[in-house]
């Protein structure tokens, strides 16, 4: 009986030692993993902080957001999200969709009745066009409600282009007279004039497809397709040669998620800029030097304007494409992507950026 007892004791001792060693290794591995994770988080935070430091002094972002009184107002903030301030403060009315003039000295936006739902893709037809200084002061009604729809600045800031059933009309801001008019050729929303004045981009019915991004030659009116099928909210890069837009690609299984894309304006090449499953990405806008991209990330399609806005983000274009979150199916389609950094910005809708210093602002 003694020998088995000794053997049992030795076995138990060895087992205890092995277990203890193994446990300590597991604990060490867990610690290491936790350390890695913490390091990664620290690095990610550092990368985001570096991005914030990089953009902080680069002008101002104007955006629409819900005020604490429940209406939509316009706000200014530094590109890192610091110093936000309400520049309209009109509790009985809403203001939305601001755009800086090319020189950054003025704003155009639309004023709506308080409580009126802002249509996520037809907002340009709603409310009244208002022009103001870029700090929101001296707001001036420009026409009546439902006039000067989809107003967009000309490159020199002296005219606006408008899109309506009548076609595309170029309006002189001093005289309010239409100085040029031409057919819209299927473009039905989000018409924007290129910085070099030679082109327009917009969302159009072309080729039987729905929600196609097109470029229109400002002189001849000739169209070319930039991106087909379920696109919207196009806007120009500063070089007038590329367009940024939102696209909900087919084949995602179900409704799908809207992603931010860019393309050369001739429509030959498209690239993913930012995607994130379970978020619809809209409001794509470039910094004036074309190095940074603004966007909004909304869990509900259309919720950016029709609910309460969506968290915004800022990234370097040189870091594109970025895929955030797990986004397993999206990562399979785009295996060579980055994870960031993305600088989180306040909840808003349709942000727009100028490098100009704004009078009345610190």
């Amino acid at each position: 009986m003694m020998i088995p007892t000794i053997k049992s004791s030795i076995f138990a001792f060895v087992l205890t030692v092995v277990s203890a060693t193994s446990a300590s290794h597991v604990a060490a591995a867990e610690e290491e993993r936790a350390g890695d994770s913490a390091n990664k988080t620290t690095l990610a935070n550092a990368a985001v902080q570096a991005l914030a430091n990089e953009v902080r002094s680069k002008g101002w972002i104007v955006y629409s957001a819900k005020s604490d009184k429940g209406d939509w107002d316009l706000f200014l903030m530094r590109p890192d999200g610091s110093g936000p301030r309400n520049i309209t403060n009109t509790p009985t009315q809403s203001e939305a969709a601001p755009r800086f003039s090319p020189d950054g000295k003025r704003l155009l936006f639309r004023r709506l009745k308080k409580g009126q739902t802002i249509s996520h893709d037809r907002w340009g037809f709603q409310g009244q066009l208002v022009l103001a200084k870029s700090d929101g002061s001296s707001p001036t009604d420009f026409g009546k409600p439902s006039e000067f729809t989809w107003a967009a600045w000309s490159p020199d800031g002296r005219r606006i282009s408008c899109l309506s059933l009548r076609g595309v009309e170029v309006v002189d801001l001093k005289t309010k007279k239409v100085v040029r008019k031409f057919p819209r050729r299927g473009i039905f929303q989000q018409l924007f004039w290129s910085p070099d004045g030679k082109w327009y981009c917009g969302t159009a019915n072309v080729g039987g497809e729905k929600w196609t991004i097109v470029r229109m030659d400002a002189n001849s009116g000739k169209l070319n397709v930039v991106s087909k099928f379920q696109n919207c909210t196009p806007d120009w890069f500063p070089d007038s040669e590329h367009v940024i837009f939102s696209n909900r690609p087919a084949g995602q299984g179900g409704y799908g998620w809207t992603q931010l894309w860019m393309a050369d304006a001739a429509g030959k090449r498209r690239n993913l800029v930012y995607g994130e499953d379970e978020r619809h990405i809209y409001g794509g806008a470039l910094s004036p030097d074309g190095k940074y991209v603004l966007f909004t990330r909304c869990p509900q399609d259309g919720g950016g304007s029709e609910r309460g806005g969506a968290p915004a983000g800022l990234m370097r274009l040189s870091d594109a494409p970025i895929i955030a979150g797990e986004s397993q199916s999206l990562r399979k389609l785009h295996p060579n992507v980055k994870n960031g950094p993305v600088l989180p910005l306040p909840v808003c809708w349709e942000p727009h950026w100028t490098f100009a210093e704004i009078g009345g602002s610190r």
Partner: protein
Amino acid sequence: MTDEVPHTLESSNEATTNKTSAESNRGTIVFRIAITLLVIAVIIGVAVALVTKNPAGPTERGRDDKVTSLGSAEVTGKLIEIRGKFLPNDGLYNYAFVLKYHILEVHRGNVEAKEIVVAHYNPLKPRSSVADEFYPDIGGTLKRFRAQDIHRMALDVPIDDYYIGGIVDRYFDERKGEIYWAVWTNLANEP
């Protein structure tokens, strides 16, 4: 007194029973007359309603003040098919869907083709509730689109002069004429 009382009571009961029976008979007759009149009234009402709805054959079906006055043309046509599925009308995206019709009758306006394509706004919605902030003057009695149904429609053309929005046009590469914009759409099926 005690003998007479039952007799008196019996007589009284008999009289009461006879009176009740007579009243009951009168009530039954009145009830029958009322029911007969009601049935006649209902039959007349239904007949009037049917005649009003389809007063005088094909040219009058689906006719109302709106369809006869809105738009620049008015036709009765058979919906040939619904090509593919409608997109959702969940309040988020609004669109016009192009449908192909065989023309049965032109009531007014200049529609020469035997087949035309017509864009209907947000086709999953009943026409009575399809009008919105952007297109407040469209409508009709049609509740849902079914292939082979006959519609009486007030139309405008070309669509780009009347509608500015997304169009789902699955006839793009084969249609020859302009797309008509449906202003008012009534069901005009044969009875």
